[in-house]
C-alpha cells in the first residue's frame, strides 16, 4: 500500500514498469513519446545529424546496417510497383477493388522487415505491401481483391493472419497469438497493424489493455495517414497524438516519420526487440499519407485539397530513400537496374495472372464452414450441384 504523507498521496498503479530504469529514465519519460517525431532522413533524403533527430534519453535509435537498408529499398520499389499495377488493374476491371498504400510503403516494408521468421503479423486490408514483403506471393494476396476467395494465402504458413476488413478486431487476435506463445514459453513477437481511424474502435482499447495486463509482446503499429476514408484525424481524437494513448495502458508509445524508411525500420526494430526481451507491448504511430483515394470507389477531391497531396509528394518515402542510399554509396546504377527489373517482373506476373480467369468450383462454398459439413449443408450442396448440372445441359 502507498504511504500517505503531508505532501500528498503518490499516484497508485497496479503495474510498475521496470524497463525505464535500464534507460535511466522515469516510467513516465519512458512511456510518453519523445517530444519530437523520430526522423532520421530529411524530406530531401539527407541524413539528419543525430542531435536533431528528435531523440532524447531512452528514445535513441541506431541507424540500421546498409544491407538492411538496401533490402528495404528493394522492397519499397517492388511495393510501389505492385500498388500502381493493382491500381491500373482495378481501372481495367481486372480487380474488384484495391485499397492502395501508395505513399505508405515505408511503413509496410518496415513492418515486414522488423519481424523474425517465427513472429506473426496481423495486417489490415491496406497492407498488401507488408504482406508481400514478408514473402507472400502477390498473386495469393490478390485472390481476395480479384473476388475469388476471402483469403488467398495460408495464414499459418506465413504467420500472417487473413487481412482484416473489420477495424481493429484483429488486434485482439494478435494479443491472443502472443499470449498462447507466452504460455508455452516461446518468444514470438506479434505485430498488430491498424490505421488512425481504427483507433476510435472499442477493440483498439481492449487489445492494448489486454496486451498490457497480460504483458505479452505485441507491437501495435498505427499507420496514421491522416484520414479514415474522408474523416480527418482531428475528428477522431483529441489526444495530443495517437502515440500518447500508450501511457494510459501502461505501455510505451513513440511517434515516427512514417515516410522515412530509415526511421521506420529503426523504431520498429527496437520495438520488436524490446517486446521480445521484456515480454511487453509497445505502441508505434507512424505519420504518413495515402497518396491515392481510399479505394477506386472513393473520390478524395471531396475531402482534401490537391495542394495537400502535392505537399506530401515532396516527402515521398521511396525518393528519399533512393537519394540517401545513392549518396551513401549503397545504391549504384547496377543495383537500381536489378531492382527495377525485379519490380517489373513482379508486375508482369501480376498482369498475366489477372488476365486469366481462374477456375472456381462453386461447390467449394460449402466445404469450409465446418470441419465436416452438416446434413443441411450437404443438402444445399446437392441442390447447387444439380442446378449447375442442369445449366450445363441447357
Amino acid at each position, binding site marked *: 500500500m502507498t504511504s500517505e504523507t503531508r505532501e500528498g498521496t503518490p499516484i497508485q498503479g497496479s503495474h510498475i514498469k521496470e524497463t525505464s530504469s535500464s534507460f535511466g529514465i522515469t516510467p513516465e519519460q519512458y512511456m510518453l513519446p519523445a517530444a519530437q517525431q523520430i526522423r532520421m532522413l530529411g524530406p530531401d533524403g539527407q541524413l539528419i545529424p543525430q542531435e536533431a533527430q528528435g531523440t532524447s534519453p531512452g528514445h535513441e535509435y541506431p541507424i540500421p546496417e546498409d544491407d538492411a537498408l538496401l533490402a528495404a529499398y528493394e522492397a519499397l520499389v517492388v511495393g510501389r510497383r505492385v500498388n500502381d499495377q493493382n491500381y491500373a488493374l482495378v481501372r481495367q476491371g481486372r480487380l474488384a477493388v484495391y485499397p492502395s498504400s501508395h505513399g505508405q510503403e515505408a511503413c509496410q516494408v518496415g513492418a515486414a522487415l522488423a519481424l523474425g521468421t517465427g513472429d506473426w503479423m496481423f495486417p489490415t486490408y491496406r497492407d498488401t505491401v507488408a504482406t508481400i514483403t514478408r514473402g507472400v506471393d502477390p498473386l495469393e494476396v490478390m485472390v481476395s481483391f480479384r473476388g475469388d476467395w476471402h483469403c488467398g494465402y495460408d*495464414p499459418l504458413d506465413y504467420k500472417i493472419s487473413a487481412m482484416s476488413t473489420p477495424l481493429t478486431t484483429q488486434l485482439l*487476435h494478435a494479443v491472443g497469438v502472443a499470449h*498462447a506463445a507466452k504460455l508455452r514459453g516461446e518468444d514470438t513477437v506479434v505485430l498488430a497493424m491498424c490505421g488512425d481511424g481504427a483507433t476510435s474502435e472499442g477493440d483498439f482499447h*481492449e487489445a492494448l489493455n489486454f496486451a498490457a495486463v497480460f504483458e505479452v509482446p505485441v507491437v501495435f503499429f498505427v499507420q496514421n495517414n491522416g484520414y479514415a476514408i474522408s474523416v480527418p484525424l482531428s475528428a477522431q481524437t483529441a489526444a495530443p497524438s495517437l502515440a500518447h494513448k500508450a501511457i494510459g495502458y501502461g505501455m510505451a508509445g513513440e511517434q515516427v516519420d512514417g515516410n522515412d524508411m530509415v526511421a521506420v525500420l529503426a523504431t520498429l526494430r527496437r520495438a520488436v526487440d524490446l517486446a521480445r526481451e521484456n515480454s511487453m507491448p509497445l505502441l508505434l504511430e507512424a505519420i504518413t499519407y495515402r497518396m491515392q483515394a481510399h479505394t477506386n470507389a472513393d473520390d478524395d477531391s471531396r475531402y482534401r485539397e490537391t495542394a495537400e497531396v502535392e505537399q506530401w509528394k515532396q516527402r515521398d518515402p521511396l525518393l528519399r530513400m533512393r537519394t540517401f542510399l545513392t549518396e551513401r554509396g549503397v545504391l549504384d546504377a547496377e543495383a537500381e537496374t536489378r531492382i527495377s527489373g525485379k519490380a517489373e517482373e513482379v508486375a508482369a506476373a501480376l498482369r498475366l495472372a489477372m488476365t486469366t480467369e481462374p477456375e472456381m468450383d462453386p461447390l*467449394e462454398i460449402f466445404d469450409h464452414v465446418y470441419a465436416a459439413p452438416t446434413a443441411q449443408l450437404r443438402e444445399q450442396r446437392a441442390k447447387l450441384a444439380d442446378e449447375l448440372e442442369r445449366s450445363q445441359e441447357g
Partner: protein
Amino acid sequence: MATATTTAPATSATGATTKPTTFAAALNTAMSDAMENDRSVCVFGEDVGTLGGVFRITDGLTQRFGANRCFDTPLAESGIAGMAMGMAINGMRPVIEMQFDAFAYPALEQIFSHIAKTANRSRGRVRLPMVIRIPYGGGVGGVEHHCDSSEAYYAHTPGLKIYTPATVSDAYLMLREAIDSPDPVVFFEPKKLYWTKEAVDLSDLRTRYESAAQDESAPAAGVGAEGRAVVVREGTDVSLISYGPSVSTALKAAEAAAEDGISAEVLDLRSIVPFDDAALEATVTKTGRAVVIAEAQGFVSVAAEIVARIQERSFHSLSSPVKRVTGFDIPYPSPKLEEHHLPSVDRILDALDELQWED
C-alpha cells in the same frame, strides 16, 4: 456410434450407488477433465479464477491447474472472445465464459465476423477449436440483462455450433465434446438447471467419453456434423419439441397430458447446430402432431425455424397445424412478472387442446 454422446443414459451403469450430482458439478468436471487430458485447454473470463465464476462453474480450476490455465481477464467481452480466437489460431483450445447471456453482446462482432468465419475465410486452413460458454435463460428471478435467451442470434450465424444440454450427464458429455470440437462451439447453459441434481456417476461418464474418443473406428469426438436430438419420453399422439431449459417443462407437460389420455413424445434437440432433421422427421411422422416449446421470444426464433422445417419436410404426416409455446415478443420481464412470460405446463396443455384431434 457417430459420437460419444449419442446414447447418453440418464443414469450410470452403477445406478443405485451414484451420488446426486449437480449440473454445475458436471460442467466443472468436464472442464477439469479436459484440462487434465490436454495442456492446450485453458479457461478464462470475468471472475472465473479466484472466485470460481459468479455461478462457481469454474470453481477450483485455478487452484488445481494454475493461473496460466484458468485466469481472470479485464472486464471486456470483446477482448475475451478476440483474445481467445488468437489463442486458438496459435494452438490453444480456449474455453471462455461470458458471465451472462446479455453481457455477451459486446463480443458479437468478434463472434460473428471472425470466430464464425475464419475457417471459411481461410479455406479451411485455420480452424478455431474454442468454446464460448454462456449461462442463458430465465426462471431464476434475475434482473434485466441476466435472463435473455439469445440462442437465435448465434444459430443464425453459419460457422458456429450451438449446443445446449438439458441433463446433468449431457452437461458433462456435451461440454467435453464441445472442447474437443474442431469448430467453435457456443455452449448455452440453462442457468436455472445449474443446481438441479441427478444420480449420475461422473467417473463412469468420463470413462465412456474417453474410450469413445479413442475409438479409431468412430469419428473423433466433437467432429460430428450430425444433429444429436434424443427422444427423452416416448409417445404416440403428439411430439413436444424442446431444448435446454424447456425440456423439463415439456416433460412435466407430457406427464400431465398423460392423465388426460394424451400420449406425448418429448424430443430434446441438444444441439441447435448441427440440427437433427432426421430425428424431427421421425417423431413428427410417428405422432402426426407437434408443439415446439422454447423460452426465447417466438418471432424469428429457433422455434420458428423448427416449425418451418416440419412444414417443409413432414407436411403430409401432419394431422394438425404445428403450434408454438414460446416467450412473448417482449424484452425479458422483471423478476416478479417472469412467470407470466415463460412457457408453463398449463400453456403447453392449452396448446395441446388447440391442436386438431379429429381427422
